[in-house]
């Protein structure tokens, strides 16, 4: 073996930026052709011998040595081993690691979080002071609730309300319970009946309380039947089979499919269609929306469910969140629009021989793209 100190093959090291300390980033340059592996060794200040510190991946030429101690100086040596020879690269000065207080690569995330968070909190406070003062447009599906319950009562048939297959912590289930309250009030006013089969026992308990309150507020507490809100099964297709059975036996005039659904969504919607019921669906499961749109009369698409529940309940947190997210959408639209206009101007200017605007635009994109190293 011939030891060669190839001047081209070099090594450098620096404190890993934007981290919590204990890491030094080592780079090697001009890796000689035919290198099979690059061994990294490290000399601690005050020591006499280099110690093994791992391997540097050839395809990257860089690695993070995360076994260092903050404040201690280290010197690195890289050994590129080829078939019959090896090359050594050594550093001149010691380098130390240290933690940074602030991860600069996440600054865009911080700005967005502060911006959107403060907007939502502001609207929540405004909603607490004056809930009626915050405008949310009425969704067509909410008008259809009246029609659906009325039609069901005329035909002497019950209303079926299916709350989805998630637990009480899911946002869709919570929105579904708010819609259930509105449906429950209408059903109580018209003197009809609502059947509410459940996938989750905790949702069942909450739904019982919701409907009891709804019936009481409509002035018909005696009309509420606790047995109409019951637990079916925790098995997905068992639940679908059970609900299908209810649809075929009870033949409801109106069916509400509100909540988070999975693959059983089309099975439920199809069966409901086949018995001629009005179907009003709403889900935050975007993969199931196409099936509901195909088989149901009215559908609340994703965020419309939350807007509907905010509209019905006028609850400050729901209202504030919807208004805050609306403002966030406006901000994003303006950002995209401004980006498009400025990018076009920059592109035209660059073609005209002035690259300044394009450089500014690229810096803007870089700022947005700052994320993981």
């Amino acid at each position, binding site marked *: 073996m011939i030891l060669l100190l190839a001047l081209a093959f070099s090594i450098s090291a620096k404190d890993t930026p934007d981290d919590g300390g204990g890491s030094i980033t080592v780079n090697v340059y001009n890796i000689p052709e035919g290198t099979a592996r690059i061994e990294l060794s490290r000399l601690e200040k005050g020591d006499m011998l280099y110690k093994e510190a791992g391997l540097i991946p050839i395809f990257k030429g860089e690695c993070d040595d995360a076994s260092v101690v903050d404040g201690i100086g280290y010197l690195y040596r890289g050994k590129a081993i080829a078939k019959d020879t090896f090359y050594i690269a050594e550093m001149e000065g010691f380098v130390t690691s240290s933690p940074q207080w602030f991860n600069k690569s*996440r600054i*865009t*995330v911080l700005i*967005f*979080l502060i911006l959107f968070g403060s907007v939502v909190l502001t609207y929540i406070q405004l909603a607490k002071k004056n809930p009626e003062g915050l*405008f*949310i*447009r009425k969704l067509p599906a909410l008008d259809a609730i009246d029609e659906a319950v009325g039609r069901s009562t005329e035909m002497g048939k019950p209303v079926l309300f299916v709350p989805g297959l998630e637990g009480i912590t899911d946002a869709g289930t919570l929105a579904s319970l708010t819609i259930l309250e509105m449906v429950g009030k209408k059903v109580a006013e018209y003197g009809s009946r609502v059947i509410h089969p459940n996938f989750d026992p*905790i949702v069942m308990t909450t739904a019982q309380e919701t409907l009891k309150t709804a019936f009481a507020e409509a002035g018909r507490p005696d009309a509420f039947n606790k047995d109409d809100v019951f637990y079916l099964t925790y*098995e997905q*297709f068992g639940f679908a089979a059970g609900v299908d059975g209810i649809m075929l036996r009870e033949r409801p005039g109106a069916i509400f499919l509100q909540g988070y659904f999975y693959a059983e969504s089309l099975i439920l919607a199809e069966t409901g269609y086949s018995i001629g019921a009005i179907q009003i669906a709403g889900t935050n499961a975007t*993969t199931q*929306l*196409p*099936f509901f*749109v*195909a088989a149901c009369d009215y559908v609340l*698409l*994703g*965020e*419309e469910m939350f*807007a509907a529940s905010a509209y019905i309940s006028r609850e400050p947190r729901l209202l504030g969140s*919807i*208004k805050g997210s*609306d*403002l966030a*959408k*406006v901000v*994003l*639209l303006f*950002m*995209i629009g401004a*980006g*498009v206009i400025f*990018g*076009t101007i*920059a*592109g*035209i200017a*660059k*073609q005209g021989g002035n690259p300044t605007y394009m450089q500014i*635009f690229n810096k803007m*994109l870089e700022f*947005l*793209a700052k*994320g993981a190293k």
Partner: protein
Amino acid sequence: MSISTSIWVWMAALLTLMVYSFLYKDNPFYRLAEHIFMGLSLGYTLTILWYNYIIPRVYEPLFLPPHQWSLIFPILLGIMTFGIFSKKYSWLIKYPLAFYVGGYAGLRIPLLLQSWIIRQVEASFLTPDKFTSLMSSINAILIFAGLFATLIYFYFSKKREHGFGAAAQVGIVFIMVAFGAAFGYTVMARISLLIGRMQFLIHDWLGIM
């Protein structure tokens, strides 16, 4: 044609046919297959969890040297979640939930913001380099128009009137096209699963193809 002589292939084939018998009508064979599946999947999951998690990650670190006593706290939090099954002790679940929701939200929200919003906004900027060919130009304009119109559709703070209403109508067209594509993809997925089963029956069981 060389029919399989493996008892497991035969068992799988018969269970497949029992499940497919539901297409004609509900029957005891289908129910038997369904119940076998439910019991089997539960038993399999529990076994995997026991040997891959409870034993190496809970029992061994705690009771075999070197003892990792620091695991006691998270294990206790995990045990507290079982309080949900008791009306008297259901309040216990609040503590593990607090850690879980707090930690999970703190971890997830910035990364969600970065990957789902900021990176998507960055990719939506129409720049001259996106207009390299006719198809890429049409693509870029369609994506931009769809994004705008769909965001307007989901804007709830204004009545749908005049230009705003028209933009929302364009938005719903884009949404419906997307739903149609998703529906078509799902149909393709379901047919693929059928093809997979048929390949098993024809090739692995009957040895025809």
